[in-house]
């Protein structure tokens, strides 16, 4: 098991390095300097600014200096908001985004898992078709359409829930979490249904039934663990998708989170902010992928045997 984790960690390093390198040079070759928008900067000021952002050094040295900063965990100063570092901006946006992502993941796993398991217990019945059709809608309905539609229905027409904000009014976290989690709940439902169907036809389930366990215990004690492996393996890619989805959801609901900052930085051409956020988010995604792989392997006795018990 430890060898498996160590192996995956080793794989993650070149990926993260590749992300840093590609992003760094992409941002550097971008047309238009960061200070082009400033009104007629005095040459001395411009030189001082460039020195502050190390733009006066050759590209190779800039890259190495950036790597050295990264190793210390420093992402550099923001282009757009002088005096604020990218670290501070990320720290300001992260709590809301993390909370939103956690709720959305909860929506995805609980709602989706429940729907999938329920559907799998009576395949090809109404109990199967109804949740699975809803799931299909969830997959086809883009986040940026679902969000406004939910706001229109629950916020404006029924006036049950606030239409925007985060932590300002009771209940204002419900709609964003639902919006972001819906598509993943739909995928989770399909995956858990397929996983459960496969597991339920296995011999050990027949054995469990034969020794007289009630059906609900067969499901909860024996089937769930194996049936949910695909869901756990999906959590890694889902996390990446959730982060991207948070760009849209945070924009729609005006949540001061990382996703919204990233989109704003993109429009402002705040290159250091883009660079820093990309590196930060990518590392997070790679680590989360790793975590979900390890978890899925740990849940799967066959894989566990292959790598030896920890």
């Amino acid at each position, binding site marked *: 098991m430890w060898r498996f984790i160590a192996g995956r960690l080793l794989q993650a390093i070149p990926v993260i390095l590749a992300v840093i390198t590609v992003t760094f040079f992409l941002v550097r070759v*971008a047309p238009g300097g960061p200070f082009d928008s400033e009104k007629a900067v005095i040459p001395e000021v411009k030189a001082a600014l460039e020195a502050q952002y190390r733009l006066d050094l050759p590209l190779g040295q800039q890259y190495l200096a950036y790597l050295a900063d990264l190793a210390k965990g420093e992402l550099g100063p923001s282009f757009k908001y002088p005096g604020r570092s990218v670290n501070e901006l990320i720290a300001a946006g992260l709590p809301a985004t993390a909370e939103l992502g956690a709720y959305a993941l909860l929506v995805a796993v609980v709602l989706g898992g429940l729907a999938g398991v329920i559907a799998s217990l009576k395949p090809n019945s109404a109990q199967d078709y109804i949740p699975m059709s809803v799931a299909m809608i969830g997959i*086809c309905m*883009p986040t940026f359409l679902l969000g406004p*539609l939910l706001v229109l229905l629950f916020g404006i027409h029924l006036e049950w829930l606030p239409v925007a904000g985060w932590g300002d009014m009771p209940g204002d976290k419900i709609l964003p979490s639902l919006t972001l989690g819906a598509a993943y709940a739909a995928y989770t439902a399909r995956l858990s249904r397929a996983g459960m169907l496969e597991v339920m036809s296995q011999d050990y389930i027949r054995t469990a039934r034969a020794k007289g366990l009630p059906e609900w215990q067969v499901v909860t004690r024996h089937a769930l663990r194996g049936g949910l492996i695909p869901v756990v393996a999906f959590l890694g890619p889902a996390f990446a998708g959730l*982060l*991207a989805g948070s760009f849209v959801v945070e924009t729609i609901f005006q949540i001061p989170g990382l996703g919204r900052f990233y989109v704003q930085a993109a429009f402002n051409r705040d290159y250091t902010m883009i660079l820093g956020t990309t590196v930060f988010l990518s590392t997070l995604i790679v680590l989360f992928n790793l975590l979900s792989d390890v978890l899925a392997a740990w849940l799967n006795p066959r894989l566990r045997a292959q790598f030896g018990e920890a």
Partner: protein
Amino acid sequence: MTATTITDATLAEQGTSLWQDAWRRLRKNRLALFGLAVLSTFIVIALVTPWIAPYAYDAQNLDLGASPPSAEHWLGTDIFGRDLLTQIMFGGRISLAVGFVATAVALVIGVTWGAVAGYMGGRVDAVMMRLVDILYALPFMIFIVLLMVVFGRNLLLLFLAIGAVEWLTMARIMRGQVQSLRQQEFVEAAISLGLSPATIVRRHLVPNALGPIIVYTTLTIPSVMLLEAFLSFLGLGVQPPATSWGLLISYGAETMEEYPWLLIFPGAALTLTLFSLNFLGDGLRDALDVRGSGD
């Protein structure tokens, strides 16, 4: 594709090809047929839009402003008095074009990459697929946003960027197919006849892997269209004066409180298309008996 499509001797005896068989099965799947019908209709409309659109694309009517659906404007008008149906028709041209062109880019790269890796095997295969694994781990959504920011927001780049992301799964599927086909006698026969690897891949391997390729292509188009709409919604995709469904949805979301039809109709067009493609893809998967699309 002129190469033989009959893969199984018993099928040949019964006189039905794989494709006739598949079509027979697909015909029984109502949802897939519905998807096919909707999709064909939308494609035909998109092709002839410049001639059949009820109004000119840039025709404004500021006196009218935003008006709900009526006899003159079936789907209503936006705040500039532009006909929404016309906007959706022209927007659909771009949304569908991005979907098909970017998928074609992904198809060409993915099939070539996978076929070469699968056919060469050994170290070449290991290196090529290792690269795919690494690329898989990259957070592409963030990268596409980055690309659009850095290089400006033009349509050609959008095609390439999305296509360059979506080829990975295709390469994996193709490699798996080629690996299993490689073991078969007809490939050995082709090798012993002295055909070049390129010819074998083109004439024998790709046509025989067409089933999974078609299925996966059908399922890639909706994810590409979703990506385009996502970018356009954020303002990083299609730029005015051009329009797309994603852009129309983002305008609609801004004014949905007063003019909900501006959100609902473009949203319906996009959702219906994505639905149709997914149903058709699922139907084709069953009809062509392709197991495990790799994701």
